[in-house]
């Protein structure tokens, strides 16, 4: 059984979807989504342990040897990402049950969980695959289900946001498709490991360079890197809040992973960052994105929107780390992928609790909540501190590695920008925390009921994960730095 885990980790959530559609019951669909996410979580944990123990797992689908067939290839990095994805899904689903019940009509709830399962399997599929074209197929599974998830919120702006996301996402995916085509043209293969072997022979040719460009631009769109981040604030702030929490922890993270996979594994770090020095523009756009995102977050009046803009800034940190291309830089970037997922999911859950009990996520509605909802707001505050990067939280660890990497490789202005934008995070998160703990409760905000225990407990799990991974860093840092060493070493 265990030898089939690489494909089952994708297949189980994918099969939960049609089964849920057969029965068309919201509760059953939710249960199937949760059960399949749990199964995926278990399987990715087992695979991570196996990979740490014995090295890369390769699974030949259809028993066709690569490069003729499609290969699933698990190494340290994508085992960790798969663990993160299924973990986020497991954490958000118990929260989502009640939150979705309130936001979405009963007869459409099963459709939401169906799309959720499809989205999860698409994302994991993109992560574990070792075939460049297979990435495109699974990317479209996750993309289409994401558009549907965003559009399910019962407000008209959600449709518009989903449409813009669809247009941007399709353009991005088509760019990736062109890039893969150019690579295929020069090498005659689609398998990533095979590509990595055959590319050095044709590395200097123009289609390969153009292909790299197309793939990076396409992934940047999906990842919401500045200046192609326009779709993200609308999509995250208009989606149902549970969906925002899920997507914030998964969708852009997989794109960041893909960027690493293509630039480091397929093209090789030496070629991408040495010969072509692609790192410099990535870092520069990252710096610009960090500033733009933070400034926009400071001016947002709605908390979901504020968190979405702060995501733009945080994603830029990941880009910076990937662009610096040292072990600490890449490690810091990937660590931030992991840690940012923890904090953003917790923050969106906190907002979800407020939405559930107050029906609004405007800044005003947070006034004085520290007295009325101290339990939920306590967890929210922990996550907010992690976003700022206070020592002892997960956010601090990854920012630390990024700053050190920037200083080590002579990018000291970049380190400055990370510091300054962290200060801006202090400003925009501080503004909310001040309202929560020091503001007066506003009288005109409705009180729509207590937050269910299921929602609160998952919020706490995530909030404490932020502290746990801030103090006990050996697991994440160890795996990520080893993975970074492996990736950078691969280039030669």
């Amino acid at each position, binding site marked *: 059984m265990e030898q*089939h885990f690489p*494909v089952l980790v994708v*297949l189980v959530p*994918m*099969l939960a*979807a*049609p*089964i849920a*559609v*057969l029965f*068309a019951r919201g509760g059953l669909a939710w249960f199937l989504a949760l059960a399949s996410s749990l199964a995926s979580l278990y399987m990715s944990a087992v695979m991570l342990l196996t990979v740490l123990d014995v090295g890369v797992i390769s*699974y*030949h*689908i*259809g*028993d*066709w040897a690569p490069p003729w067939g499609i290969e699933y290839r698990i190494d340290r990095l994508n085992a960790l990402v798969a663990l993160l994805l299924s973990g986020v899904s497991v954490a958000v689903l118990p929260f989502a049950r009640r939150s979705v019940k309130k936001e979405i009509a009963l007869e459409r709830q099963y459709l939401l969980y169906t799309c959720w399962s499809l989205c999860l399997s698409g994302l994991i599929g993109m992560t574990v695959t070792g075939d460049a074209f297979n990435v495109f197929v699974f990317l479209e599974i996750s993309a289409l289900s994401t558009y549907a998830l965003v559009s399910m919120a019962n407000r008209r702006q959600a449709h518009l946001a989903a449409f813009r996301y669809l247009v941007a996402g399709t353009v991005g995916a088509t760019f990736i498709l062109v890039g893969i085509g150019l690579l295929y043209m020069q090498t005659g293969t689609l398998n990533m490991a095979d590509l990595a072997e055959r590319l050095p022979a044709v590395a200097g040719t123009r289609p390969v360079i153009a292909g790299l460009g197309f793939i990076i631009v396409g992934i940047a769109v999906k990842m919401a890197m500045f200046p192609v981040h326009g779709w993200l604030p609308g999509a995250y702030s208009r989606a149902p809040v549970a969906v925002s929490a899920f997507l914030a922890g998964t969708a852009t993270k997989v794109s960041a992973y893909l960027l690493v996979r293509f630039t480091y594994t397929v093209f090789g770090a030496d070629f991408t960052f040495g010969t072509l020095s692609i790192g410099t523009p990535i870092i520069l756009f990252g710096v610009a994105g960090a500033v733009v995102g933070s400034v926009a977050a400071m001016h947002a009046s709605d908390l979901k929107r504020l968190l979405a803009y702060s995501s733009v800034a945080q994603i830029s940190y990941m880009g910076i780390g990937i662009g610096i291309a040292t072990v600490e830089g890449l490690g810091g970037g990937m660590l931030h992928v992991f840690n940012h997922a923890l904090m953003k999911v917790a923050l969106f859950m906190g907002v979800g609790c407020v939405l559930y009990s107050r029906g609004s996520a405007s800044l005003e509605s947070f006034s004085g909540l520290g007295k009325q909802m101290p339990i939920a707001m306590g967890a929210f505050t922990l996550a907010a501190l992690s976003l700022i990067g206070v020592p002892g939280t997960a956010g601090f660890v990854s920012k630390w590695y990024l700053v050190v990497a920037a200083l080590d490789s002579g990018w000291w202005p970049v380190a400055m920008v990370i510091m300054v934008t962290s200060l801006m995070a202090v400003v925009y998160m501080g503004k909310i925390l001040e309202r929560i703990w020091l503001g007066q409760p506003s009288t005109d905000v409705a009180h729509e009921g207590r937050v269910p225990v299921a929602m609160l407990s998952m919020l706490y799990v995530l909030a404490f994960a932020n502290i746990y991974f801030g103090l006990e860093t050996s697991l994440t840092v160890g795996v990520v730095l080893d993975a970074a060493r492996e990736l950078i070493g691969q280039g030669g």
Partner: protein
Amino acid sequence: MHHHYVLRVVSKILIPPILLFALYVQFHGDFGPGGGFQAGVIFAAAFVLYALVFGLAAAREVVSDTVLRIVSALGVLLYAGVGIVNMLKGNNFLAYNNLAVDPVAGQHLGVLLVEAGVGMTVGAVVISLFVYFSS
């Protein structure tokens, strides 16, 4: 449109051959161009013609929304089911060789079943897209 006898008769004559053609495309994909995708869409075209001539309500009585939903899900499950059988028989996912004693016959059977799954899902989804868009 309901009083155009010519249309009604012509479409009654046309629909069976279209369905037949869909089946031909479905199973002839092994030898010539064609396969589940094209067959599914052609099958759906027959339904669209029926709906245009006899009205959507009549067409929905022939194929209800629930049936469409279930068939589209079953198509995916059939495809995956073939792969799971391969796994249970000890090979990897979608390794059709073990479906029959002779590996080539196994491959043939696998391709046939998988294409049938494709045709089911594509046909059902295209029909339901048409239904949703026109009701």
